[in-house]
């Protein structure tokens, strides 16, 4: 029977899928996921609050405008970054912390299969939360103005979702790379996203292209919130096609670096 099993051994893609499924299952079962779900529901909660307040007060702000504001403040500068940083680093770092990487390395699992499985599990979880935290307030706030607006502004929702997914793809890849190369990937990830990106993205020079946020904001259909002083600098966005291409290229580059670093690095047992 063992021989038969050996002969039917499937390709590395299948192995990657097994790791992907197990990683996602493990993540979903944790209490942290519930907490992250609450965080990603904050956009919906704020949208519902808007509805409640709108009934009692004559609001000077339309549902669409408030949706744009939520996307520009909470979503692109908060939820997207924090979820991606957390899940992007957790998927691999957890194996190191639990010391279970040894089980994966003593199995016929290629480094690339392992990393791609981990990457896509981080991306999948982050993407699900982001789609929820984008689509849910959209439905509530468009319906608040007029149900027909839900269909009318679908293109905006589509672009928002595209930005979120591209952002998740890029940041998760960056954090996967950081979790292989660095000892404290979350700390470095937060320093990079909250300090470097939030500051440098506002500088009107070539340097702002060294941020993922610049490319995301170039596609983003809403104005992103920023510090009142830095916003005076008013940097120019890049074209949408260039931004999408750059984000995809950067994602691939981060994953490639992760792969090469994983092969070179020694994860020894202590």
């Amino acid at each position, binding site marked *: 029977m063992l021989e038969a099993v050996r002969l039917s051994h499937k390709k590395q893609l299948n192995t990657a899928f097994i790791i992907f499924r197990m990683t996602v299952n493990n993540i979903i079962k944790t209490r942290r996921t519930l907490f992250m779900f609450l965080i990603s529901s904050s956009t919906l909660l704020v949208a519902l609050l808007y509805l409640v307040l709108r009934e009692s007060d004559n609001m000077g702000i339309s549902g669409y405008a*408030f949706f744009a*504001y939520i996307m520009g403040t*909470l979503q692109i500068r*908060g939820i997207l970054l924090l979820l991606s940083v957390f899940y992007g680093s957790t998927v691999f770092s957890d194996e190191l912390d639990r010391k279970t990487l040894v089980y994966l390395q003593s199995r016929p699992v290629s480094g690339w299969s392992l990393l791609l499985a981990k990457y896509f599990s981080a991306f999948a979880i982050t993407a699900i939360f982001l789609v929820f935290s984008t689509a849910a307030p959209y439905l509530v706030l468009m319906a608040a103005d007029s149900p027909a607006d839900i269909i009318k502004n679908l293109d905006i929702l589509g672009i928002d979702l595209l930005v979120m997914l591209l952002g998740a793809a890029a940041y998760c890849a960056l954090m996967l790379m950081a979790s292989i190369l660095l000892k404290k990937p979350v*700390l470095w990830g937060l320093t990079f996203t909250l300090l470097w990106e939030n500051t440098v993205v506002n500088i009107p020079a070539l340097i702002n292209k060294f941020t993922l946020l610049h490319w995301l904001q170039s596609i983003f259909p809403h104005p992103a919130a920023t510090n009142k002083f830095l916003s005076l600098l008013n940097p120019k966005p890049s074209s949408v096609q260039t931004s999408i291409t750059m984000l995809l290229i950067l994602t691939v580059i981060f994953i490639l670096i992760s792969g090469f670093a994983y092969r070179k690095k020694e994860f020894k047992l202590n």
Partner: protein
Amino acid sequence: MPIFEQTYRKWEGTLRTAGIRWFPITKMGIKQTFKKKRFLLFFIGCQVPFLVFAIRLIIGALVPENMENTAEFLQVNPSFFAHFLWIQTTFIFIMTIWSGANLINGDYQSNALQLYLSKPLTQLDYILGKLSIVVFFNLAITIVPAILLFILRVLIKYDKSWFVQNLWVIPAILGISLAISVIHSLFILCLSAITTNSRFSTITYFIILVFTDGVADLLYHLRRVGALLNISISNNIYSLFGIFFGKHAAKIPDYSENMADPYYGAAILIVLCICCYFVIKKRVGRIEVIQ
């Protein structure tokens, strides 16, 4: 001359505890943290604003007194110190995480909590010992450089009227630095006590700060009620500048005059600190022996 037995000899002196029982925890924590090279580099990097402000202060002090158009930038007044401390609060976020995210959950993981509490230490001693580690590092980048700047100003250009007029800045520096340090430290310790995963405590710390900020901003955008800005923990912390520096806090970029009374923000922070303390006490109190 007596010949001593080469065996274990019992200590015949009196066992004395340290004057402050929890001090060994703090001392060891500080020593261990300073051993990390990257942390040392970061710590040195946090002193860069001190150098910038010191140069600014020196240039300002050398500018002739009769120059009426002395740039506001070069004036050394209470706003100068408030501004310096505001910049350092940015570093406090990272410093707090680096020195504090793993303090209690590291002890959970290595089962060291039982070792601590089997010594003549109370839970409060343990908490104070751990808290002091983070507070130490936060004060090292706030109080110490700020007071040094004050002393530098006095030394470079001693002016009795300036000194008397601005003497109140010293307790203001002490007060705001201590307040911000303790708040951040208690908060990170609370998160470290809640979870066994330091990555999760790090990200939760940021999530809560960033989110309360974002939600406060959104709600204020809706209703334009100052009290809504108090939802943000960061806003409440910045409002403390209003308590300690008064009108001089207005020039700080993140200080919002739209907020409700700063004492309201202080009250919220006190309640937050008390809650954090009780959470830590409860978590430390229940030592998990076997799961």
